[in-house]
């Protein structure tokens, strides 16, 4: 099977003065893939996204975008769109005017550029003729996404696209990104919202201090992860706690901070041990009413890999 790469980066380094923003970063993103970029503040995510958008050039390393080697010149291949550090919008223009001005800038006709279509995709049709000045952060994010969609990108770069989104906006954005990926567009997005990344991304890259500490499918990340904490709500918490204490590989965590009510307690275990506990609870006639990780596997891995576990 042949895999088409939208991004192939090898050994990318970028410094700002004495600050090393990226240090030998590798990144592979195939077409039709939604790839998440995770890392603490200052990890180099925005710098990497900026390189992909053609806002800067790497000091060293190899970068190939949509099949084209990116050289020293300030340029990104055609078919790349997106935003970093928030979408660029002009508050004195309406949503439609912002998009029409962009379409005209690229030589398109505002009537045929698909402005109504992209506004509909991101759920902003009702406010199309309102000035962007009054838009909330979430609406601005969606309008920024609409602006990127106007170019019919084959590689979409989004920096924190979920910031400020309400549930409806989040649904619109997720729907758009999923459809784009299904149509073959590669999406690289950064986010601090682990639930979003888990819902959208097939692969993630975790950056810490400019270096890649993990890159690959989420399933691989889960397999590499350490024990996780799980909230367990049952019909008989006392009996369930006793079973947990007797199950090998399962520890009851001091959950006084986490626990909201007496029916819930927190256990720490790897997946096989947790499976065994659940089986025993069910066999004992105790109903399992809730079983969920206290933090998501991705977040747990992120914290572990970026040495922030101690902060939990």
């Amino acid at each position, binding site marked *: 099977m042949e895999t088409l790469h939208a991004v192939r980066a090898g050994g990318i380094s970028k410094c700002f003065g004495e600050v090393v923003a990226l240090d030998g970063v590798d990144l592979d993103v195939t077409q039709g893939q939604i790839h998440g970029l995770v890392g603490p503040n200052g990890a180099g995510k925005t710098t990497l996204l*900026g390189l992909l958008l053609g806002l800067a050039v790497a000091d060293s390393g190899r970068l*190939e975008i949509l099949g084209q080697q990116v050289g020293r010149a300030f340029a990104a291949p*055609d078919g790349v769109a997106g*935003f970093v550090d928030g979408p660029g919008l002009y508050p004195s223009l309406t949503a439609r*005017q912002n998009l029409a001005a962009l379409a005209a*800038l690229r030589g398109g006709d505002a009537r045929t550029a698909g402005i109504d279509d992209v506004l509909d995709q991101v759920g902003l049709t009702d406010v199309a003729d309102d000035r962007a000045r009054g838009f909330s952060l979430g609406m601005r994010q969606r309008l920024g996404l609409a602006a990127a969609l106007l170019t019919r990108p084959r590689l979409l770069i989004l920096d924190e696209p979920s910031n400020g989104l309400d549930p409806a906006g989040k649904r619109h954005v997720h729907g758009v990104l999923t459809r784009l990926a299904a149509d073959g567009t590669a999406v690289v997005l950064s986010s601090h919202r682990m639930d979003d990344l888990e819902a959208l991304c097939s692969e993630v890259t975790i950056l810490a201090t400019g270096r890649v500490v993990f890159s690959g499918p989420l399933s691989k990340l889960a397999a590499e992860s350490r024990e996780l904490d799980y909230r367990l709500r049952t019909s008989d918490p006392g009996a369930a706690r006793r079973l947990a204490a007797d199950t090998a590989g399962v520890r009851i965590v001091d959950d006084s901070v986490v626990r909201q009510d007496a029916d819930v307690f927190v256990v720490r275990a790897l997946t096989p041990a947790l499976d065994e506990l659940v089986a025993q609870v069910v066999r004992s006639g105790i109903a399992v009413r809730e079983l969920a990780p206290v933090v998501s596997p991705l977040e747990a891995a992120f914290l572990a890999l970026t040495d922030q576990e101690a902060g939990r």
Partner: protein
Amino acid sequence: MTAVAVAERTVTAPPVSVARGYRFELVKLVSQWRVRLLVLACWVAPALFVAGVSQQDTLPSDTLFGRWMHATGWAGPLVMLGFAGTWALPLLTSLVAGDVFAAEDRLGTWRHLLVAVRSPARIFVAKTLASVTVILALVAGLAVSSTVGGLLAVGNQPLVGLDGHLLSPGDAAGRVLLAWLCALAPTLALAAIGLLGSVALGRSSMGLLLPVLVALAMQVAQMLPLPVAVRLALPGYAFISWNGLFTSPAQLTPLLIAVAVSLAWAVLATALAHLLFVRRDFTNPAYDGSGRRAFTFGVLPLAALTAVTVGAVAVATPSTGSGIEQAKVQKSLAIVFAHLYRLQTEQLHRPAVTEAQLRTSAACTKSDGQAAQEGAGNDWRCVVSWHLPGVAVTGSAIYQLDITSDGRFVADGDGPKEVNGYFLVRTSTGDAPNPLWQFDGNVELLETQ
């Protein structure tokens, strides 16, 4: 094993053309309420101002040509030009050119713009052209509106020139147009300084204020007793030297020098702004381009240009003094008096005389002869003498002159009352003060060829 291949060959997207970028920038500028209000104000307010003032009993006689606003509609746009050179144009250039780059910093839209246009150099050209277009539209508004207001309120009458000679309406129209065109040169210089400030100082309000501050500094400098070479080498002098278009012959040398200096400032400041802009690192969102290096990079070359132009003007026109010398004051006053005497003669329906017949001369002293007989000051006292055909007695009249450093003077008649005192004269446009009572003139600072 998965074979790896790259996507089909992709070409680098070409940068957006300057024409499209220009249109994009214009759309953004015109969408701002501030710019819309400025355009409206510049196209409406001058007409109302000129028409209103022209109908007042008291005219703005402290402004050049202000005392003639009741006599001709062509005085209005010149009064407006004097006001614009002092206040309006520096302010307009500040609000448009001084903000055109900084606005992107405030909005955080640089990266968006760079991704869309793909060429910092083209962004710079488009922004520069768009801001210059808006500034030109504002200047055109000031000129057209004040002219229309003047012509509608007063009419298409001859204009009394700065040396007292009468300009036909057609001639006046041409010179008014030329004067406004000459004022474009220092306006462009201020616009370029605004661009430079906007690029070099980023979000700082100093960037927005830079053209106003520079214009203010230039005005203060023009009030100081500077050598002529220094005065002419400052970019704001073209806001003054257009006065020379309204003498006969026109004082073109200082005007051309001032226009050339202004254009040199415009070119250098724009080039510096371009250089700073294309070298800016846009990957760092916290960095808005400002900094000591950018400031130094912008200021030092302009200081060097000033030094070079001062040297060049000093060599080309060896005028290192104030340019206001006794002989030139006397000559200038005599010429204005002769022209206005003819005007007064006509208004009083006396037998016509020519300037040659009048053989006017003036004898001027400064500080009653106690100080050096040169330089600006309000202590010049002159006695003007003239002859009338068939009259043996030589006429004489006394004037107090207030001469400013830029060579402009106001002559105030000090008797005899029948000649240069205050009385009203009936003219075709209504009663007007005796033209020999108080009048404007200027001393050509450079040596006349």
